[in-house]
């Protein structure tokens, strides 16, 4: 798994989507060709803003797995650390996702955390 993890480090450590310069569409996760423009498309990496909204979520083994709506129509499946509801505002956080084994490499990646000010406003 080391090369497979390493190859995508850039896209895991930060929220980097693909942007098609031909049609202006954004895609997450990163992809190599634009599904709308196909061979006419021009795909570039594009950093996505740090905040989003919870579109839907589940609680799995005590962890919150959520589909988060980011900017430009992109959606990201991610873990959210903390309690959220549909519509909650969240921001990205750098966290551990797991490890290969006790003596293997550590998998770091992007998770999201609730934005505190949003919670306060609601309360």
């Amino acid at each position, binding site marked *: 798994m080391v090369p497979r993890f390493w190859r*995508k480090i850039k896209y895991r450590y930060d929220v980097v989507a693909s942007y098609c310069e031909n049609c202006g569409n954004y895609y997450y996760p990163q992809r190599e060709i634009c599904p709308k423009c196909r061979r006419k498309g021009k795909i570039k990496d594009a950093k996505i803003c740090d905040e989003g909204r919870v579109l839907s979520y589940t609680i799995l083994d005590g962890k919150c797995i959520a589909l988060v709506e980011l900017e430009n129509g992109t959606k990201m*499946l991610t873990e959210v650390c903390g309690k959220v509801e549909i519509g909650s505002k969240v921001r990205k956080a750098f966290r551990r*996702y797991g490890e290969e084994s006790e003596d293997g490499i550590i998998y770091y990646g992007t998770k999201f955390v609730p934005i505190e000010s949003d919670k306060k406003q609601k309360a």
Partner: protein
Amino acid sequence: MRKVAIVGVGSTEFGELWDKSFRSIFLSAGLSALEDVGIGGKEIEAIYVGNMSGGKFIDQEHIAALIADHSGLAEFGIPAVRVENADASGGSAFRQAYMAVASGIHDIVIAAGIEKVTDANDPMEVLSTAIDQEWERFIGADLPAIYAIIARLHMHRFGTKEEDMAMVAVKNHRNAVHNPRAQFRKEISVEDVMGSPYVAEPLKVLDCAPLSDGASAVILASEEVAKKLCDDPVYIDACTQASDYFSIQNRRDILTFDAVVRASRKAYKIAGIEPKDVDVAEIHDSFTITEILAYEDLGFAKKGEGANLIREGETEIGGKIPVNTSGGLKACGHAVGATGIRQIVDLVLQLRCEAGKRQVNAEKALALNIGGSGATAVVTILSR
């Protein structure tokens, strides 16, 4: 393209078949299909096998040739091929077999599906290889989690209740009671479902299909050959397949399975029917929400109104459009790669009026087999 018919069907029971091996369950399904049509087997020109993960479940790849050998067909050297599309492997293998006969390349072939899951330590982990390993599984999601995310949004947007989903499981269990091959021949109540623990909120244990061992087989023949072999061939009016964006992250709306919409619309057009003309259906209810979504995407209900069908009993035996008279994946069992073929077997029994206490009055039958979280859908329309 010529007309293709189903001339024989066979299936093992689905469930935890501890004393039976991969090889023996395959053989048992294949032999009962041959027996059903009354041929010895050397007439078969090709084998199409749906199987999701021989490699992960039993450490065995190259299974089509293995199956050909152990079915006693190595002697004749016929081609054998395995088709993999996660839990739509069976439906996809059926479609390959259908196309081979429809095109005239073969006159009579066998389409089978098989999965032996109970030899693996963690079958659910294997099933979750059907979702994106790099961008869904990596972050800790599994297949139930993806459907749970869909279910929660369906509840939020359309007012579907956990009780509505529970009613799907209750109906399918009730249907399975009279299916001799079903894994759970036992009724359950809405309270049972609601009281079962969460697997992935809001989906509970009893919202999820089990993972089962099982094999099913059907024999397909050209109309001409079919008429010679039997009196009651069941015709394949359409068999279509469509794909969608692999991950829910890329779907335009996670509450619509575009693959199901596309495959079914095309199938209706080819068969010359409309959704309301379907008399009985086998629908891929890997989770209870999957069946509700399918009601909508197949056009049985408007988007957002799928739960009404289950609330009003429309999909019960005796309702306007009975769904999963076999018990579905939930109660008949989900032998992953075998499921798509098992659905065809049960619809053929309905069209031949051989479904016993589950019998409904049907001319047109529809099967929907879904792969993973909806990136593959196979729709088959049969008629007598």
